C-alpha cells in the first residue's frame, strides 16, 4: 500500500514522479553493470586471501601456480610501485599483506589468467606458510593497555569525548542500559567488479568500476600505482547497489596493477563469499548509556560510553565514531552530557560505511532508553518522546545549534495518526503468519506488539571536511547535456538531475553524459548528500546557463534580462508580451557553465566534543507493529508507519522507494541480518546463511512525507536515503519487547533471545 501521489503533469519537472531514464535498459537486462563488462583479449583477475585473522607470513611460494597453463601474472606487495597502503581517512591498509595478516580475507596475492577456473586453480596452487598468532577479537580487550598492538598505528583508532554542562547532575529518575549491535552487511546484489584497460606502453590505465566515489578511488589508485592522477581515468560501471560498501576501494588497485603488469585488459569480479571478505561492514557496537530525567520525563543529562569495533583497518571508523557520539542524545533536548567514544582496531573484518553511519548504533541505544524512561515516568512511548522533542534553535550536546527545520513532534504525531493494521485473522493464510510455509505457528500462538523509534541524522560530511560537488550544464538547440561525476547506485540521481534541468531551463530533453573523472569530483554517493550536493551543483550550473540564455535573449530582443523568466518551456518577459521557446532561443547557440556546490564549512570537535561539526539534520519517526510467536521466538513485522522530514518531495515515487527500501534494511538488522563471527572468522559468508528480508518478510509500509522546505538546502529538499533505516530497527525491537516483556538489549534479536 502506498500514499505516493503521482503528480499529474505532462513535464517531468521537480515534484513529478518522473521515471528512470535507465529503467527500460534495467528491466530488459540491457543495462551494463560492472560485472557485464568485456574487452577483447581480456584476462580474469582473482585474489588470494588470508584464512587467518592474525598471522605472520613466513613465505609465499607461487612456483607451482606459474606452471599452470593460462596463468599470465602473479603479483604481491613487492609489485606495488607506489604507496603500499590505502584507506579513506587513514592510509593504513596494505594493498597486499606482506608480513602480517590482520583479518580473515585480507588480500595477499593477485593472479591474472585466461579463465576464472584457471584463476581458481592458480590460487589453490599458491602455498603461503603462516605463523598463526592469537587474534584480538574483543574491542574491550583490544583497548586494555597490556594488550598487544596489532597495527603500527595502535589499537585505538580514535577516542573522542563530549563533556558539556553539569557533570554532577543526578535526575530524580535514572534509567540505564547496555546495548549491543551485531555486524551487518550491506549485501548489495551487484557484486564488486571492474574492468581495467592499460594504455599502450603502460603509461596509465582506463578503469570501469562500480564505486560510490570515482575521484577518491582515482586518488588512492594513483598513489598506489605511483602515477599522476590523469593517468588513472575512471568511468562508472553500472552499480548494483552500494549502501556504503563501495566507499572504500576493494579490487581497484589489484585490477589496475594486473592490467599494467600484463598489458592486457583485466576483469575482476568477486563471488558472494569473496564480497563478504572484500568490503567493510557496519560496525558492531557496545553502548552503555544512562539517562537522568525529571519525574515528568524531561531529559536532564546523559552519560554514555560507546565502543565501536572497527576491525583490522581504520576505513571511516573515526567518522563513524563522531557520528555515533554526536547523535547519542537522539532527536531530544539535552543540556548536560558526558560521552566517551572509542573506535577500536581488532582482528575482526574491517568496518566502515553503511547506510546510517554510526547513527544506527546510537539510535538503537537511545530509543531503547526512551522506552525505559517512559515506563519509569508512567508515560506512553509517544508522550515521553513528545515531552523531549527537539525544535529548531535547540542546542545539541556539542554546542551546535540546530538550524535545520526540525519537525520532530510532527514526525511523531503524524506517525501516530496512521491507522493500525487489522488484527490477525483466525483463518489467516499460513503465509501471513509467523513462520510462513513452515506452518510453525497458528494464530493463537501469536502476540502482537507495537513499538516506537525516532531519530535524528546528520546530512552530508561533517567534522571540517571540505565537501563539494561539481556539475556542468550545456544548452544548445533546446537540449541540455549534464556532466558530473555523481555516482548512481540506484538511488535515482539519474532521474533527479534531468528534473532539475527541466525545471530551471524549461527544456524537455536532457542528456546525461558519461559519469567519469573527466570533470571535478561530485563527492561520494553517501551520507544522504547527493540530492543536496550534486543536486545543488546541477541546479547551480543550470541557473548560470539560464542567466546566459536570458542575457542572449535580452540582447537580441532588447529586453532587460532581469525581466526574463522561464515559464513552462518558454522564455517570457514578466512585464511584457514577449515570449520565445527555449528551443528557439537556444538554436545554434551553445551555453555552457560549470558549478561547484560547497555546503557551509563545519568544524572539528574540540577535546570536550564541542564544535559545529555537522551541516544539517533530518528527522523521522517509525512505529512498528509485529507479530511474535513468543514460545518459539519468531517474528513477523506486520506494519511500519512512518512520517519523515524530507524538506520537499522532489519525486514522490522515488522518495517512497527510498523509504520502503531503508525500512527493509532496518528490519533485517532488527531480526535477521548478522555476520556471525567466531574468533575473527565469518561463519556465514553466503546468502544461505546471511539472511536478507524476502518479499514474505516485507511489512506493509505506510509513509507520510513531511514537507517543510529546508532553507539551507539548494532545492529545499533534505537527503532522504539514510533516515528510513535508522529508527526502524529500535521500533521493531520495542515492538518485540512490547509483545514479549523481554529486555532484548541486543540486535539482531534471535529466536533464542526471545524464548529461552
Amino acid at each position: 500500500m502506498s500514499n505516493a501521489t503521482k503528480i499529474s503533469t505532462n513535464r517531468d519537472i521537480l515534484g513529478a514522479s518522473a521515471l528512470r531514464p535507465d529503467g527500460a535498459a534495467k528491466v530488459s537486462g540491457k543495462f551494463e553493470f560492472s560485472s557485464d563488462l568485456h574487452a577483447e583479449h581480456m584476462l580474469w583477475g582473482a585474489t588470494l586471501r588470508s584464512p587467518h585473522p592474525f598471522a605472520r607470513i613466513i613465505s609465499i611460494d607461487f612456483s607451482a601456480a606459474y606452471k599452470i597453463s593460462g596463468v599470465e601474472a602473479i603479483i604481491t606487495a613487492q609489485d606495488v610501485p607506489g604507496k603500499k597502503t590505502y584507506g579513506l581517512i587513514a592510509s593504513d591498509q596494505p594493498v597486499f599483506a606482506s608480513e602480517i595478516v590482520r583479518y580473515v580475507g585480507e588480500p595477499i596475492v593477485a593472479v591474472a589468467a585466461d579463465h576464472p577456473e584457471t584463476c581458481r586453480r592458480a590460487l589453490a596452487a599458491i602455498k603461503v606458510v603462516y605463523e598463526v598468532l592469537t587474534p584480538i577479537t574483543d574491542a574491550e580487550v583490544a583497548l586494555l593497555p597490556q594488550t598487544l598492538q596489532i597495527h603500527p598505528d595502535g589499537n585505538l583508532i580514535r577516542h573522542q569525548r563530549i563533556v558539556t554542562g553539569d557533570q554532577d547532575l543526578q535526575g530524580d529518575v535514572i534509567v540505564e542500559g547496555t546495548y549491543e549491535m551485531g555486524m551487518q552487511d550491506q549485501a548489495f546484489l551487484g557484486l564488486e567488479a571492474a574492468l581495467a584497460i592499460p594504455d599502450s606502453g603502460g603509461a596509465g590505465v582506463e578503469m570501469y568500476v562500480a564505486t560510490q566515489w570515482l575521484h577518491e578511488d582515482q586518488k588512492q589508485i594513483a598513489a598506489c600505482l605511483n602515477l599522476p592522477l590523469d593517468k588513472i581515468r575512471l568511468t562508472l560501471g553500472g552499480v548494483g547497489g552500494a549502501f556504503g560498501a563501495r566507499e572504500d576501494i576493494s579490487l581497484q588497485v589489484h585490477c589496475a596493477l594486473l592490467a599494467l603488469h600484463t598489458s592486457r585488459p583485466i576483469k575482476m569480479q568477486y563471488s558472494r563469499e569473496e564480497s563478504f571478505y572484500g568490503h567493510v561492514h557496519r560496525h558492531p557496537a557496545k553502548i552503555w548509556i544512562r539517562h537522568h530525567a525529571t519525574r515528568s520525563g524531561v531529559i536532564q543529562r546523559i552519560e554514555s560510553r560507546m565502543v565501536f569495533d572497527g576491525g583490522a583497518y581504520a576505513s571511516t571508523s573515526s567518522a563513524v565514531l563522531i557520528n555515533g557520539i554526536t547523535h547519542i542524545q537522539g532527536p531530544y533536548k539535552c543540556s548536560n552530557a558526558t560521552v566517551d567514544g572509542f573506535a577500536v582496531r581488532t582482528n575482526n573484518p574491517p568496518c566502515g560505511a553503511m547506510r546510517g553511519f554510526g547513527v544506527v548504533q546510537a539510535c538503537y541505544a537511545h530509543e531503547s532508553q526512551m522506552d525505559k524512561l517512559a515506563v519509569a515516568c508512567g508515560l506512553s512511548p509517544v508522550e515521553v518522546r513528545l515531552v523531549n522533542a527537539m525544535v529548531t534553535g535547540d542546542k545539541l550536546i556539542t554546542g551546535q545549534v540546530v538550524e535545520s527545520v526540525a519537525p520532530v513532534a510532527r514526525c511523531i504525531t503524524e506517525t501516530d495518526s496512521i491507522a493500525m493494521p487489522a488484527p490477525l485473522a483466525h483463518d489467516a493464510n499460513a503465509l501471513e503468519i509467523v513462520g510462513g510455509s513452515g506452518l510453525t505457528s497458528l494464530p493463537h500462538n501469536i502476540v502482537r506488539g507495537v513499538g516506537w523509534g525516532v531519530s535524528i541524522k546528520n546530512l552530508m560530511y561533517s567534522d571540517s571536511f571540505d565537501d563539494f560537488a561539481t556539475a556542468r550544464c550545456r544548452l544548445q538547440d533546446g537540449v541540455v547535456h549534464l556532466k558530473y561525476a555523481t555516482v548512481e547506485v540506484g538511488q535515482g540521481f539519474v532521474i533527479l538531475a534531468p528534473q532539475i534541468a527541466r525545471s530551471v531551463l524549461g527544456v524537455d530533453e536532457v542528456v546525461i553524459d558519461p559519469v567519469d573523472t573527466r570533470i571535478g569530483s561530485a563527492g561520494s554517493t553517501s551520507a544522504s548528500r547527493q540530492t543536496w550536493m550534486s543536486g545543488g551543483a546541477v541546479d547551480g550550473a543550470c541557473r548560470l546557463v539560464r542567466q546566459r540564455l536570458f542575457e542572449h535573449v535580452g540582447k537580441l530582443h532588447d529586453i532587460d534580462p532581469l525581466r526574463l523568466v522561464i515559464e513552462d518551456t518558454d522564455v517570457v518577459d514578466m512585464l511584457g508580451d514577449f515570449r520565445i521557446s527555449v528551443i528557439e532561443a537556444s538554436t545554434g547557440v551553445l551555453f555552457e557553465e560549470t558549478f561547484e556546490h560547497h555546503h557551509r564549512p563545519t568544524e572539528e570537535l574540540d577535546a570536550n566534543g564541542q564544535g559545529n561539526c555537522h551541516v544539517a539534520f533530518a528527522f523521522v519517526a517509525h512505529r512498528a507493529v509485529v507479530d511474535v510467536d513468543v514460545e518459539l521466538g519468531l517474528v513477523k513485522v506486520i506494519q511500519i508507519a512512518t512520517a519523515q522530514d524530507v524538506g520537499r518531495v522532489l519525486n514522490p515515487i522515488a522518495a517512497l522507494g527510498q523509504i520502503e527500501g531503508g525500512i527493509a534494511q532496518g528490519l533485517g538488522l532488527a531480526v535477521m541480518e548478522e555476520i556471525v563471527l567466531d574468533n575473527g572468522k565469518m561463519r556465514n559468508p553466503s546468502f544461505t546463511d546471511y539472511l536478507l528480508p524476502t518479499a514474505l518478510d516485507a511489512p506493509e509500509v505506510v509513509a507520510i512525507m513531511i514537507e517543510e522546505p529546508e532553507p539551507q538546502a539548494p532545492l529545499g529538499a533534505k537527503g532522504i536515503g539514510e533516515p528510513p533505516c535508522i529508527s526502524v530497527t529500535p521500533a521493531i525491537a520495542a515492538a518485540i519487547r512490547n509483545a514479549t516483556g523481554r529486555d532484548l538489549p541486543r540486535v539482531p534479536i534471535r529466536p533464542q533471545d526471545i524464548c529461552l
Partner: protein
Amino acid sequence: MMPNTEIYNLRVNGKNHEVRDAWVGESLLYVLRERLGLPGSKGACEQGECGSCTVIMDGQAVCSCLVMAATAIDAEIKTIEGLTPDGELTEVQDAFITEGGVQCGFCTPGLVVAIEHLLDNNQSPTEIEIKEAISGNICRCTGYGRIFEAVQTAVATRRAAR
C-alpha cells in the same frame, strides 16, 4: 545421449547456440553470460538464494546458476533477452518502470522473469500468491513495495488487454 562436452548446443530464446571449449562444471548462468553474449541474467549468490539469475527452462522458472549448462542441451531456455522482440517491453517490464520497482536494477531481470512466469500460469494472483512467487528473488533496494505495486499494475494491464 552423451554429448561432446567440448562442443555442445543450447537452445536459448528460440535460437541454437554452439558452446565450445567449455569446462563441464560451468553453470548455465556462466555460459549465458560469458559465452553466449546474454548478460541479462545476473549472478549475485551462486547458490539459488537470490533469484537474480532466474530463467525459464522447459516452462519452469529456475535459477540458472544451479543448472549445469552441459546437461541442458535439449532444453528450451528463455532468458530476459527473449521475453519480447528487441525494443519492446512487456506489461510487467513497463509496470516496473512506471511504479518505481527499479532502483539499482540488479535483481530486476530475475524478478521480471519470475513474475512473467507467475502471470503466465495465474492471471489473477492474490497478494499472497505474488509474494510467495517472488519470495526467492531478493531485492536489496526497494523493500519490495514498489515491486508489489508493479505486479498489480501489470495484472490490471494484462486483464484490460484481454
